[in-house]
């Protein structure tokens, strides 16, 4: 099954309250890899952590994918429940975690730094969603919005264990306390999901600067109301700023069309060409 056409865009904004932007993102329509990272740690360390994570996951995924590296040869221990590409993502996240952890351990200026990660990879017949921390990934399909990432924060885990209700969680001051991130520990066990793609799927990856201020239903309505990825990103950032912009906000949007059936060579080429033409807004 081929991916006929993918359109994507990404945008980040420092917001109205913070001095620096510690978020990083990347979009790569050739590789079909989309990443958002929300860094933490003072004096630019958060920015270093999020940028390092995005770069390393991009590089390792590209390298392993292009050489069709076997699962045994990639970084870390493969997970038998995942596809080979899923393991490339897993390995890339674990590698980035290790590097950031070592930087934070051995360099005083990086002490305590860490970052969340949200990764979306699309390959023929498969959508891979991976994350650690609380930067969510949404899938919008057939008029419904579904979170295809897991929030690794204190309240989300309390809710999962049945110790807290959704209502209590929404009010809790603890909702920014992360239980998983890249950098704090030598080992990391991110959550990875693999889903079959469908025609016209749309995906949103963002930092919590957006989801703190905009509800899932609002995200759904905004996605349904705007086809152009660049405009959609701008709309999200504008809404977050309008509501106070208390944090750095980053949004990456990805739209698929015509994933369902095998495509012949020429059509795939036109798809790739169109994907190249659709430009991506880069940070700054």
């Amino acid at each position, binding site marked *: 099954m081929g991916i006929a056409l993918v359109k994507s865009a990404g945008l980040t904004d420092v917001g109205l309250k913070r001095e620096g932007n510690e978020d990083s993102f990347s979009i790569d329509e050739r590789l079909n890899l989309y990443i958002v990272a929300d860094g933490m740690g003072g004096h630019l360390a958060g920015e270093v952590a999020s940028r390092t994570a995005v770069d390393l996951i991009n590089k390792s995924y590209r390298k392993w994918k292009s050489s069709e590296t076997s699962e045994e040869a990639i970084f870390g221990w493969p997970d038998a429940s995942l596809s080979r590409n899923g393991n490339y993502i897993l390995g890339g996240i674990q590698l980035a975690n290790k590097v950031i952890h070592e930087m934070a351990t051995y360099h005083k200026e990086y002490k305590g730094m860490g970052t969340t990660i949200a990764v979306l990879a699309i390959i023929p017949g498969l959508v891979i969603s991976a994350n650690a921390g609380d930067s969510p990934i949404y899938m919008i399909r*057939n008029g419904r919005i579904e979170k295809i990432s897991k929030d690794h924060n204190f309240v989300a885990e309390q809710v999962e*264990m049945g110790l807290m209700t959704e209502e209590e969680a929404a009010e809790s001051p603890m909702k920014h306390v*992360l239980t998983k991130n890249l950098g704090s520990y*030598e080992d990391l066990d991110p959550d990875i999901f693999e889903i079959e793609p469908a025609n016209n799927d749309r995906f949103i990856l963002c930092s919590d600067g957006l989801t703190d201020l905009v509800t899932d239903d609002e995200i759904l309505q905004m996605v349904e109301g705007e086809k152009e990825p660049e405009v959609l990103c701008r709309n999200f950032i504008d809404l977050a700023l309008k509501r106070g912009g208390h944090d750095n906000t980053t949004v990456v949007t990805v739209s698929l069309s015509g994933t369902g059936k095998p495509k012949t060579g020429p059509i795939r080429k036109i798809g790739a060409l169109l994907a190249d033409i659709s430009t991506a807004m880069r940070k700054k």
Partner: protein
Amino acid sequence: MERLVLTFNKQIINRYSFNKDNLTIGRKPENDVQIDNLAVSGHHARIDRTGNDFILTDLQSTNGTFVNHKQIVSHTLKHGDNIQIGKHVLLFLASEKQEAGAEEPAKEPDLDKTMILDTAKQRELLAKQGKPGTAVPAASEKTGVLSALGGSNLGEIELTKKLTRIGKADTSEIRLSGMMMGATVATISKRPSGYTIASTGGRTKIKVNGKVIHESAPLKDFDTIEIGSHKFQFYQKESK
């Protein structure tokens, strides 16, 4: 007191306290930490207290001892170290005092800012909130199972992959035969919300509890699934 937590597949199996100066790990019953698995040597490793340190030593075991994925011969344990022995993981937890002293959290943390939480802080926060069960329970992983109904010889099929493809194709995780069976007729994915079955839009009918599925449907325990002429019951069991 320092503790060891024995886990397998993220499930806690047992907890051990260091109430003496050494502790042995192995398959044979005379070990303090007995792990009944063939990947584990009879006398696999030991931990000795020397002053305030705890030193883990591999006893020339067949399959080796790993700490945080690195093979070791001997290693001074730190709070939070993962000791891998075969497929089992022993988590080393330093004493409460050491944990607290390791890194003092700010007195008035800015909770609007994203913070990082370790399990020691988590327990502390839980205790403060007056919630029951101060130990952090491992979220139980469940594995979906398709149980073939109606005289099929397919038996019980565990959904061990994040995405299971069902159809005639060789690449399908579950291969089904039949005149009308397509190459891939349905997929079952494990998502944050649970297992979801999706039709791939071919001519083979997919039904859940008798209703035809055109796109996708969440699966609940004991749902019946019909894929062409094949019939299954879905349920979830605790992962071992």
